């Protein structure tokens, strides 16, 4: 059986939190519980004193079922669908790995 996951584009994730709330809506999660949570890396200035390390990385939690009901109806997972920066993708690991290689930097794949 094929394994599915989420690919996150950390170059373009703007930290808008839409994935977090879209997921809470889909899974009826109460306050204090998250199906996906945006972690913040940085910001700090690199040693060249010019560029920055600053990334947002949404991480699926134990509650993430990759929106199996939505996917069964041919829809995207709610986090992927609502993402303001279109920085998330859903697919098989083969597909996602190919996309990640094509992107070449600042990306991660999560298997919940």
């Amino acid at each position, binding site marked *: 059986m094929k394994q599915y996951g989420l690919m996150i584009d950390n170059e373009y994730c703007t930290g808008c939190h*839409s994935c977090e709330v879209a997921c809470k809506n889909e899974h009826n999660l109460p306050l204090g519980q998250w199906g996906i949570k945006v972690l913040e890396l940085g910001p700090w200035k690199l040693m060249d004193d010019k560029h920055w390390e600053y990334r947002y990385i949404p991480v699926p939690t134990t509650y993430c079922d990759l929106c199996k009901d939505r996917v069964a109806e041919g829809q995207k997972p709610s986090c992927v669908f609502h993402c303001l*920066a279109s920085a998330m993708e859903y697919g098989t690991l083969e597909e996602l790995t190919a996309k990640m290689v094509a992107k070449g930097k600042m990306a991660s794949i999560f298997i919940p």
Partner: protein
Amino acid sequence: MAKLHWKENAAPAVTELEDGTKIYRTNAWSPPGCHAVGCGLRIFVKDGELQKVEGDPDQPITKGRLCVRCLTMKEYFYHPDRIKYPMKRVGKRGENKWQRITWDEAYDTIVEKYHECVEKWGVNSVSVFAGTGREACRYHTPLCLGVFGSKTIVHPNSGWSCLVPRQAVMTWILGSAYVDFDYAAGLPLRYDDPNWEPPKYMLIWGRDPLRCNADGMWGHSMVELMKLGTKLITVDPRANWLATRSEYHLQLRPGTDAALALAILDAVIKTDKYDKEFVEKWCYGFDELAERAAQHSPEWAEKITGVPAEDIYAIAECLVQKPSSACVGLAIDQNPNTIQIGHALYSIFAITGNMDIPGGLFMGQPSIFPGRAQDKKSSEIHEEPEEEFEGIGYKEFPAIPLIVNTTHPDCTLDTLETGRPYPIKFAFIQSSNLLASSIVVQPSRWYEAMRKLEFIVASDIFMNPTIAGLADIVLPISTSLEHEGIITRTGASQPGQFSAIVKVMENYGETKSDLEICLDLYHRLHPDSDDPRWKDTDSYLSSDLARINGANVTFPELRERVSGQYELEYRKYEKGLLRPDGEPGFNTITGKIELFSTMLGALDEDPLPYYQEPKFSAVSRPDMAKDYPMTMTTGARRFTSFHSEHRQIKTLREIHPWPTVEINSKTAEAKGITEGSWVYVENPWGRAKLNAHLTPTLIEDVVSMDHGWWYPEKGEEDMFDVWDCNINNLIPNKENGKLGFGTHFKCMPCTIYRAE
């Protein structure tokens, strides 16, 4: 010509699922608050209950993507604190004792008080107080002018520091209702349209478009442009997310924007690579402007702004490449030097030939937004007005009525206190929580002045500090899900979203929309009117649509189609599409872009841009800098709120719980301030308590603050502790530019220390 496009094969306005759930398509404006972006919504309703809110994949621009404010709309809609019924005050003003009344009683009281005030003090003693950005903006002018017949429309934002100064520059210098960056919003093929190309460089100046969605633009289109190869240049004292992904981040000293803009202009001219053909054919006063710019070299600006001259020269080489564009925000309005910043900035894009070309700066056609003054030529300024009317602040600031039909904001506070030139006795506060730190400065002074009014009616969704402290009657407002309306970008002056707000839910309690209240009051005050515009919401909205060039759609038709795209042509100046006489050129006195402004000259202002040091900076006031050595900027935007809204939405508070002051980590360490500690920000005008966030994104002596905070959870006692965190108490009133525009939201002196 202007065209309206509909998406082929879009889902119908309503779909019914097997289990009886209906899915309605509509578009968001407000409440909950937003800036008229019109993001597409799919609303799931079963047995009259709102089940969930999702994005609408058929909305041509947002395509389903949605921010957390709309994603929490169910929580907002069913919030137990929503005002359900009209209420009247019992007990003293500000005592927070309320009693439910009927709409009839509310309207009867309003009409009775209206007649009383008109009889005793004249019709202009009746005022409508307006906020910023919400859908109510569409109805402020009709309510005040059309319903009450009064000219006292009040937008109490000090220096009208929101959009209007930029619009003055756009109108007077460029002859356009609005200019903004082009993200192919009106083109059905969007970025795939063969005539469109992405900007090579985008100059983002004093705006955080991802969070603020300002002026109807869809903020994350900036990320789409980045993915298409657009390189960013960010001008901001603070490194926001976009700045960290920019080719250049010009981290200027707060308030010195005009110096930087002039120096970039000088550097662009010095490249000798600007568009000489465009300048020759379409610009007026280049030599004078070039001479002025030459007095403001990048080396000169480096000393003032702190931005290295080499960066200024480097970005000049970027901006001469076509197409390049600019995303210019509120920060330039919030500065008394505002007109000059805009003048210098837009001049850069004019002389580089980036106006109205694909991927450049899109020039808007005349706007139908109610409340904007009609374009007047400078020759008309000195003509006698038709009737003797001294608008509030118009003598002191005659530029105001030339650009907007409101009183001068800061002068209005004087009027409330003195009754001159005429008294204000009646206030309809329409969807504006003005005492929270969003728009007025010196809010406690406004509060004291307004407490003395004869009668105050306020309309809103939730009880807020302004209503609790001031109102006699409260009217409950409906959300976007409970009423009808239209959304066009900047009054259809810009291409892009063209949408209906569709009523999909039965009203919560007895709520009504701003428009419905406006129409009800109209019929009460003008019972014999047979004006078809005011008949009902359909006819009112249809008559608005009828005024939009090339739209040819009635409101019932738009409601059925839900969303469309409004397309305007490029290079309108070549085709005679900018001027009312249909001639090629720009809608200015000279028919050209006025680098040397005849309008500013006619207003006794310098026709060329200049730099003015911020009045309270350490350079201007070294005496003050001894005790208050830091600089504060306020108005930082968050994804989780719109001005003072959303503070009672627990899911959003979980994401951003407290009013935040951002401090450079080194500065904080020196002051013993740790992450999450409560601190006071203080200056001679006042102090505010905020929560510290340590970050390297700010210059060491600069602190950045959230605005609009109050605490719904603290209750109506002490007006929800609105004074505790009120950052606008630290900003003086009536410290505006020469023409009355701009104030010091972004550059006040302060000190900061631990609260405990």
